[in-house]
């Protein structure tokens, strides 16, 4: 593994470096927990890593309040998400996903941008953000910014929609409805407590009004299809219902709808059968306090 490294400190330097390398082979490096493993498997070639670790740009590095939501910079680490009380309170699903990622050591360096850009179907933070219907804010070398819904960001197994002259800058998570009651969480199935890549995962963020009626629902699933999937019909199924009165049979109907979005593979971690079976069970489980 051999590469050149360049470390821009300002946005301008960053964009200049991206422009400079348009004809070359280059990669971004944030926490390196995915990148180094990937580079280890590749033969040496003329590669430049644009190191984002020293970048001073609030859009990349901070968590800030917007009128219609919260902006999370792509360089925010998993640990920073877990230490943020606002995120924890408003978006338990994100908080839980971040705290179940790998181990504390990895979480200290693993970034939210890296998790999204890797575009793994097993990405924990990515799965939570899909359930939250977040938006991705991308910066182009000419300085313009484009925003895409997160569902459009993933285009295939380990493939995102970024072009070579673009970089992911931040994520915008929409605000919760006012006075809503939250049912929000992240369920990760695997064999170990930590250092586990999800065999199946389920992220849900459900809001209901003061009468108990569900007004908004986002359900996303991981490790059961080439990309993380937003389970649209399952989410819609919940709208208008009362969360607390969803009993066993409705819960199973919901779970059946979640399964519509699966196209699982069998590999050494689990069979396709297991992934579906476990997903069905955990999907219905979210209503079981009722």
């Amino acid at each position, binding site marked *: 593994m051999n590469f050149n490294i360049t470390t821009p400190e300002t946005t301008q330097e960053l964009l200049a470096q991206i422009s400079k390398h348009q004809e070359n082979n280059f990669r971004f490096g944030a926490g390196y927990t995915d990148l180094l493993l990937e580079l280890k498997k590749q033969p040496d070639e003329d590669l430049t890593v644009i190191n984002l670790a020293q970048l001073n740009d609030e859009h990349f590095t901070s968590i800030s309040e917007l009128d219609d939501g919260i902006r999370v910079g792509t360089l925010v680490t998993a640990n920073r998400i877990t230490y943020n009380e606002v995120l924890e309170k408003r978006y338990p699903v994100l908080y839980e996903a971040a705290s179940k990622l790998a181990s504390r050591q990895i979480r200290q360096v693993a970034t939210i941008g890296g998790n999204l850009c890797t575009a793994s179907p097993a990405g924990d933070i990515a799965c939570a953000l899909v359930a939250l219907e977040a938006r991705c804010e991308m910066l182009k070398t000419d300085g313009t910014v484009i925003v895409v819904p997160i569902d459009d960001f993933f285009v295939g197994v380990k493939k995102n929609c970024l072009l070579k002259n673009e970089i992911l800058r931040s994520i915008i998570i929409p605000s919760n409805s006012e006075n809503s009651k939250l049912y929000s969480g992240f369920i990760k199935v695997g064999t170990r407590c930590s250092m586990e890549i999800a065999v199946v995962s389920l992220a849900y963020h459900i809001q209901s009004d003061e009468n108990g009626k569900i007004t908004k629902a986002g359900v996303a699933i991981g490790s059961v299809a080439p990309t993380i999937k937003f389970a649209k019909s399952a989410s819609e199924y919940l709208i208008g219902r009362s969360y607390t009165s969803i009993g066993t049979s409705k819960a199973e109907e919901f779970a059946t709808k979640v399964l519509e979005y699966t196209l699982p593979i069998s590999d*050494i971690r689990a069979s396709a059968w297991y992934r579906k079976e476990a997903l069905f069970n*955990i999907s219905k489980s979210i209503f079981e306090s009722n």
Partner: protein
Amino acid sequence: MKKELKIIGKPTPKLDARIKVSGEAVYGNDITLPNMLHGAILRTKYPVAKIESIDVSKAAQLPGVVCIITADDVDTNNISYLNDHPVLKKGEVNCIRDEIAAVAAETREIAQKALTLIDVKYKVKEGIFDPFEALKEDAPIINKFAPANNDKNIAHPFHYEHGNLQEQKDRSACIVKKRYNLPRVTHCCMGTCAVTADYSKMENRLTLYSQTQMPFLYQRDMAYTLKMEPSRIRIIQPIIGGGFGSKLDMYPYEPICALLAMKAGQPVQIAYDREEEFLASPTRQTMVIDISSGADKNGKFTFREVKIIMDNGAYTSWGATTPFVMMQTFSSLYQLPACLFEAYAVYTNNPYAGSFRGYGNPQATFAVERSIDLLAEELGMDKAEIRLLNANFKGEITGQRLEFISCGHRDALEMVIDKSGFDGKHCSTGVSQATQQNMKNSRSDTLVACGMSLKYESSSDKSVASTIFQRNSERYKRGIGLASMVHVGGGAKIYPSDGCGTTVKLDNFGYLTIITGSSEIGQGSETVLGMIASEELGIDMKNIRVINTDTDVKPWDVGVHASRTSFVAGNSLLGAVKKLKNKLSSKAVQLLETDIEDLEYENGLIKSRKTGESIKTDKVVREIHFREPNELCEESYYYEPDSKFQDKGFKGNVSGTYAFAAQAIEVEVDTYTGNVRVLDVHVAQDVGKVLNPLGLEGQIEGGVVTGMGYALTEELIIEKGMVLNPSFHDYKLPTAGDVPDIHFYPIETNDPKGPYGAKGVGEAPLIPTAPAIANAVSDAIGIKIDDLPITPEKVLKALKERIV
């Protein structure tokens, strides 16, 4: 009168703890010698193939490459106790680990790069990856060096029997017949394999910095392989980052490293990365155990009839002799009138197995203890009661003629039954399982989904609190399981000597040097030796050094295996210390004008109890050194346990004494995901006598976690001879967060032969763990567990099948 012990039995930090924790410790991978080169090994691309040609010319031209060797360049004998394993493979390969060529270069990167430039032409052949296929008549011969007198593809057959099998079968009220499949797991030493070879042409002397746990057998094996005089080879053991049995055999990379150093005329180091460690280091035997076992109407065991097929892989290691240990369990764990045992180590084209902590006993105990639960269920008997009824006892001489001169089997069982509340928790008969299930409640204290507790991480993982749903007791089922074990506890006589030599040297500043034949591989043996010397001589631990790493210096010892070090090296040290003490005492009586019985060794002093007068020990040494007749304060002793070689039928008292243990384990099964969470582990172990409680706890906890991995998560997955999960990502070693509460209750039986009454403890803690967990899972959800590991997928499948 029993003397009160001053340090034995008191928690004592390991002597090497500071340097290990601080990073000062020099492990095998840290060694650097002047002009040292880095070696790398080209392994085959296909498990089974004819090698048509090897072209190293491109690699040789790469700048920085110093030398390359293939089988054609070397003259070596085969390795392994059956001499069936060529160091570098010529003409054909039979296993994915096979070494075809090796490179020494200036840097590790250059050596790795050179490997990619070696051009090997293969003609791929069909392999045999199932031992049952290998036993078929028309199967081809897998290892052409195999012993000629065995049937085809059988590396090593074993046969054992005692008692009248037919008679016992006829008396049985109930017979349970089962097939169990035990997986391939690997040691996962934190320190990967590493060896550094330094050869002096002028002196014809080879020095190896090796992680071996058997330095003297290693020296002999290395000499045989390289066709050298053993005394020309010096083995130095750097600090070893975990052994667990993996370093019992010598493997090809070690003589290869020596050959590279000899050819290059420069020192060479070969160190594996983690992937190579998974691919190329040994594993536990995978095996298929067919067992039928019986009991009479009162629940007394009648017989066990066992046939085992072990997948030997393409070559043989010491691991093939695990039946030797297994037959002890089948013949002698619980009282047993009759036993017939057959085992075959069968060649396949899979990666070869090696020896691993427990040495076959985890597999054997699994088969015995699972079957006992089934017998109890059939008989409608209580699972604790049936075990207590049949427990081994002090004074028992078993059918195999093992002599239990001390025995804590029953005490250990009773302890864990009591402490775990076993009687109130388990399903007594297995008949009314379903109804009892519903009464058993799940935990409601933690709310993390999918059975993923985050025990050691909980301070930041406040997710627990934010999850909004409650656990459903229908979903989580609890169960409890029981298992016990017997294992050698006083060495094992399998080599002409099972002994250990010790030299003790007391200098004229009062510092004691213990030069022991035994090896430290992380198990804490040097600390225990220091404690023993400190106890006897009244010398502070910080004034004691243990030298144990150099075959040029230390006296002979078989090596670290069979849980023998504290017992054998401890007794050996006691013998040496006794001689040294005699010398000191005879001088001290002159100086203190008293008699020997009156002397007491304490706080660096030799005291007269009568007069209260004392003299510093170092002063006594100086009196001995510097006054006529001017003697050294140095003594040596060789201890040989009084165990016996077994006869041709494997009968005889093979160990100085035997260790017993029992575990009761409580689990919770998530019926939605199939995850099994181990909640509580109760361990009672007959350790003879606790020497160092801290070291003992470490052995117990480490063993239990290894056993848990074996039961639930670990498996090196091999398909058609290829390793599919050579990384910690996919080889599921338990993590800190998975570790349950482990409650340990030492049973002190004060063995008449052990040092202070102690017996071997190292292997025992992992042996009953997997069967206890399997029994607990079966208790929780009423499914039969015949295979390990008990993965979530297997659990969910079994539940599903039960419902439909």
